[in-house]
């Protein structure tokens, strides 16, 4: 796992010196705390920071081949030993035992066709100097991030995080209101958009090819397909064998591996399978909350005891969330609508402190096996077309939106009924959009006016893939969920960013593309049955390896306190007062200070207990912090990485790799 960055210039004679690359390396240092490498030359320069997981002494980057092709690479290809053996059979030898070199050799031999062979999570930049061609690639689900931007003359700068782009000095950060509005609709800016103007995110499963100053190709190389040509129904044995294999592959590392254990079905199942496959004692890590409404420690301890793992619990108080919030926004590089990434940031730190740098987690199971309430909502809406009493069951959904089931009723049901037309491909996501959009009521008038012509949902609708009509309604919902919540939010703000902030790599066995492809072939009722039991096939698997109470446990969405860490709790941190002061709100220019003042009064007096206001407070506060970090005084000044690079390639002299240290 690493941070990568680089600059390729339209002018082939324009040098890219060490200084901007060293600044990029410094900005991405947290992603690769074990060292950095550089490649400089005329018309192109690259930087890499490394978290060493495979071939610890020999795996430094950038790497290049005898023909001069160069790769900076962030991620893991888990099947690299098999691919290396295949290359060897074809007479292609590798100098290192890293997956990085396997990827570069495969690319050199097969071009982008090689991507289909890679099982893993990765983002990389492949430079072919003779063609002056840079190819940016991102993994299927978008586990690893990749940002890019263009300078006025068509030069391209890229980095694992936006802060790497800004550190290059090639572009300056500016807010993008449409990107921000995306966050306050579906919890994240949708690729290629980011919350920064003219800063693009390469989409999941996408490739962008830049050649001599212009983009010559931009396409997806993989996208979720729910209606494959060959769709024979898999048995339970096939599913279980595949998930076990995915876990086994994801335990491959030259360092100790652990798991995150939330106490729910998905992470418990992964932990059980990892325990079975691990060669060493398995460490498990859990977040526990002092606020009992969010706490799951009883379930976590039950699983850890039953599986005999070495269990570590991080006890989170409201003040811990406030203390780390600004750093989390800095790493996430986006406004947030939830505080949920903060405990995971603290958990990654604790994990690192215990010497574990790789953790497997349960992400992806809810999207692939239909665990979320939005799938149940959709099923109930359809049942209600024949049996109106089905609507009463809506009262039990979305516990996180507050109010007990008993207090719900017709208003709640109307909320769903009016959330979207039945034939709208986004009907499944109108509920989330409606709830999240509460934040927009606090926009300044001029911001609301500027956004009048834009509609996040309309843009998403217009950009849905062709062929969507071949998928079932639930499959369409799953697709939208992968692209709107999983990639920009769960895998990024709540995944990669908060883990890599401490040099910890998350691995996701459910997001093996083979598991996705098999899940698609499962009949609907093996995912969500008529009684609204979710993740049916996974629960069946779990019943054989987990304590009975866990395999059948209803989903408890992972959440963290939202208002009390900041206002109306034990103490209000000074920085919160400052960030939400009228002058700071005016300076950021997104939210109206008088509207916000009313919200703050309610938060301080403990009356802001509903979901609207919690989300609004987190949205406003994170926007303020984000603005200060990237556009205020905190965002200026980009120090250079001053250490000695582990690799320093002068691309003007020789294509051969030169190992300095």
């Amino acid at each position, binding site marked *: 796992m690493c941070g990568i960055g680089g600059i390729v210039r339209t002018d082939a004679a324009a040098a890219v010196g060490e200084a901007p690359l060293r600044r990029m390396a410094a900005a991405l240092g947290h992603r690769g705390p074990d060292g950095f490498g550089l490649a400089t030359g005329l018309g192109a320069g690259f930087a890499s920071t490394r978290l060493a997981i495979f071939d610890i002494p020999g795996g430094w980057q950038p790497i290049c081949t005898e023909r001069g092709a160069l790769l900076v690479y962030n991620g893991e290809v888990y099947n690299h030993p098999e691919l290396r053996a295949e290359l060897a059979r074809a007479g292609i030898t590798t100098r290192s035992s890293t997956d990085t070199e396997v990827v570069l050799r495969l690319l050199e031999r097969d071009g982008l066709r090689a991507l289909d062979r890679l099982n893993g999570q990765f983002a990389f930049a492949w430079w072919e100097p003779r063609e002056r061609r840079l190819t940016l690639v991102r993994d299927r689900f978008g586990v690893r991030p990749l940002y890019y931007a263009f300078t006025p003359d068509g030069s391209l700068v890229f980095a694992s995080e936006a802060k790497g782009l800004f550190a290059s000095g090639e572009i300056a950060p500016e807010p993008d209101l449409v990107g921000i509005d995306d966050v306050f609709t579906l919890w994240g800016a949708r690729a290629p958009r980011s919350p920064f103007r003219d800063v693009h995110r390469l989409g999941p499963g996408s490739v962008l090819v830049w050649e001599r100053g212009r983009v010559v190709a931009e396409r997806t190389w993989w996208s979720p397909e729910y209606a494959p040509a060959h769709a024979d129904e898999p048995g339970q044995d096939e599913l279980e064998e595949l998930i076990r294999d995915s876990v086994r592959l994801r335990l491959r590392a030259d360092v100790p591996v652990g798991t995150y254990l939330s106490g729910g079905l998905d992470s418990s199942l992964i932990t059980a399978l990892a325990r079975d496959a691990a060669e060493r004692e398995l460490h498990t890590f859990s977040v526990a909350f002092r606020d009992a409404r969010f706490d799951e420690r009883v379930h976590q301890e039950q699983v850890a005891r039953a599986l005999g793992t070495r269990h570590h619990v991080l006890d989170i108080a409201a003040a811990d969330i406030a203390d780390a919030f600004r750093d989390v926004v800095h790493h996430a590089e986006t406004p947030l609508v939830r505080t949920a990434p903060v405990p995971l940031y603290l958990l990654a730190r604790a994990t690192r402190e215990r010497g574990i740098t790789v953790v497997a987690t349960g992400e992806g199971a809810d999207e692939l096996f239909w665990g979320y309430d939005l799938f149940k909502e959709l099923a109930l809406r359809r049942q209600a077309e024949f049996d109106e009493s089905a609507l009463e069951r809506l009262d039990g959904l979305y516990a996180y*939106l507050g*109010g007990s089931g008993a*207090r*719900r*009723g*017709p*208003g*709640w*049901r*109307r*909320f769903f009924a*009016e*959330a979207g037309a039945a034939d709208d491909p986004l009907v499944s996501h109108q509920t989330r959009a*409606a*709830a999240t*959009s*509460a934040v927009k*009521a*606090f926009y300044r008038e001029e911001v609301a006016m500027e956004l009048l012509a834009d509609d996040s949902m309309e843009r998403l609708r217009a950009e849905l893939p062709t062929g969507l009509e071949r998928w079932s309604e639930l499959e369409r919902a799953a697709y939208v969920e992968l692209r709107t919540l999983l990639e920009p939010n769960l895998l990024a703000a709540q995944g990669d960013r908060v883990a890599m902030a401490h040099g910890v790599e998350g691995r996701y066995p459910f997001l093996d593309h083979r598991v996705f492809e098999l899940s698609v072939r499962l009949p609907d009722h093996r995912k969500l049955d008529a009684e609204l039991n979710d993740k049916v096939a996974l629960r069946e698997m779990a019943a054989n390896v987990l304590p009975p109470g866990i395999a059948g446990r209803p989903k408890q969405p992972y959440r963290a306190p939202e208002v009390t860490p900041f206002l109306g709790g034990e103490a209000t941190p000074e920085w919160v007062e400052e960030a939400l002061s009228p002058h700071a709100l005016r300076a950021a220019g997104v939210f109206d200070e*008088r*509207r916000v*003042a*009313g*919200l703050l*009064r*309610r938060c301080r007096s403990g*009356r802001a207990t*509903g*979901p*609207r206001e919690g989300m609004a407070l987190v949205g406003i506060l994170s926007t303020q912090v984000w603005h200060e970090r990237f556009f205020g005084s905190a965002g200026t000044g980009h120090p250079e990485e001053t250490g000695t690079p582990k690799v320093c390639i002068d691309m003007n002299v020789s294509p051969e790799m030169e190992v300095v240290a």
Partner: protein
Amino acid sequence: MNRNDTMTRGAQTDQLRDEISLFITENFLYMRPDHVLRPDDDLLRLALFDSLGFIELIEEIQDRYGIEVRDIEINEENFGSVNAIVSFVAARRPT
């Protein structure tokens, strides 16, 4: 109906109007610091409520006044203004 009954009803209606106005002002109108809520203001046109806010309003009416709001009753006629809500609650409230 004698005069005292009429006055009592009038006072109850006034109290109801005050309570509902206060609830809406405290919970929703803080986002519109310049607006003073009038009993006939068109709540839909004011766009004070997003859909979750509307759920909160219905829940409050049900809880505070001990009435059950049926699905078909959630309409502009009953919830379009403070006065509309007052009339609806007054008619449905247990006496």
